[in-house]
């Protein structure tokens, strides 16, 4: 038995137009015009709930929830338990949280795929939800990049292989390149931009090329590449390094939505008819850890 993606939905808070005397320079590099910021009284559960409601009646059959987040409501209990209750899904259910960032969708997808292949669950809800704005104050220039968001991907059983060949990479020596830690008793988000950019320039193309070689494929086997929507400068450099124009880019009005950026991009590409059902896609998430996840799917 295999798994397949049945549906993808997402929720983005309203646009947050930012103002800066350096707007032109920032926009040129990030490619981001608007970010999305949650209301003060909202958190990852609220955003996830809104995304999940769009799945409507499909929610009734859910027997597993995987919740990818790095900005949970509580340290414990897990967000997946709270979401099960909020969605009023029955109690015979597998729930788990995964603490991963921009590569989180691939990690969550690998767990969903394994649960179906091992006959542990049949209808799996993979939720990615983060609210970095909680840890990014007005002085922090990362406010020009990161957006709050949630996505909900529904996985079902399939007779055909639709998700195949994973590759993962972690360099924990760079754990503090993207980090939320206490500074004067306040938890703050910080990112070493040059470290992360260097990691992306060196490791992402290297790992994708190794992956293609290992599984005897090339980029012509894919309709489109869905890489984490980090920023314009990163995506354009990856196009150059991978020598392809097939990298999907949808960041201008959305911002960097961390673990949701890949499912949001796939959903939007389907809507815009850039891809269609049964197309082969290469997905690659990269970031916090520092980590990379790569997988091929037939959508």
């Amino acid at each position, binding site marked *: 038995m295999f798994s397949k993606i049945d549906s993808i939905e997402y929720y983005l808070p309203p646009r947050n137009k930012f103002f800066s005397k350096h707007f032109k320079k920032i926009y040129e590099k990030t490619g981001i015009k608007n970010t999305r910021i949650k209301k003060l009284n909202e958190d990852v559960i609220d955003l996830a709930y809104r995304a999940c409601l769009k799945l409507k009646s499909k929610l009734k059959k859910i027997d597993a929830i995987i919740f990818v987040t790095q900005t949970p409501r509580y340290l414990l209990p897990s967000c997946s338990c709270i979401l099960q209750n909020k969605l009023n899904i029955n109690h015979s259910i597998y729930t788990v949280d995964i603490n991963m960032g921009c590569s989180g969708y691939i990690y969550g997808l690998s767990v969903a795929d394994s649960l179906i292949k091992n006959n542990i669950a049949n209808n799996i809800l993979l939720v990615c939800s983060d609210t970095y704005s909680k840890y990014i104050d007005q002085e922090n220039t990362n406010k020009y990049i990161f957006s709050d968001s949630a996505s909900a991907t529904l996985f079902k059983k399939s007779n055909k292989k639709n998700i195949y060949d994973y590759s993962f990479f972690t360099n924990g020596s760079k754990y503090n390149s993207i980090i939320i830690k206490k500074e004067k008793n306040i938890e703050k988000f910080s990112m070493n931009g040059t470290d992360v950019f260097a990691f992306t*320039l060196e490791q992402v193309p290297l790992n994708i090329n190794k992956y293609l070689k290992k599984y005897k494929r090339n980029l012509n086997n894919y309709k489109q590449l869905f890489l984490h929507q980090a920023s314009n400068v990163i995506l354009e450099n990856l196009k150059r390094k991978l020598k392809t124009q097939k990298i999907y880019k949808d960041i201008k009005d959305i911002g960097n939505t961390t673990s949701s950026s890949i499912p949001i991009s796939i959903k939007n590409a389907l809507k815009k008819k850039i891809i269609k059902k049964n197309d082969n896609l290469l997905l690659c998430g990269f970031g916090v850890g520092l980590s990379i996840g790569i997988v091929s799917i037939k959508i």
Partner: protein
Amino acid sequence: MNKKKLLIIDIVSKSLNINNKKINEKTNLQNLEEWDSLGMLSVMSALDKKFKGSINVSSFDKVKTVADIEKLIK
């Protein structure tokens, strides 16, 4: 000054959108107003493009001078 250093100065000044006379091999780049995180990404990107990946960008955050950049080129 060698050709490589002159090329680096040209790349850095173009990436930071400043006059190349503002930079010499001893200039502390970290003292330039334009040497912020976005400026550094532009320089890293341009250097990686010019030297076709043969620059060790992972040590770039330690760079202070053009001579430091030259040492990163393999």
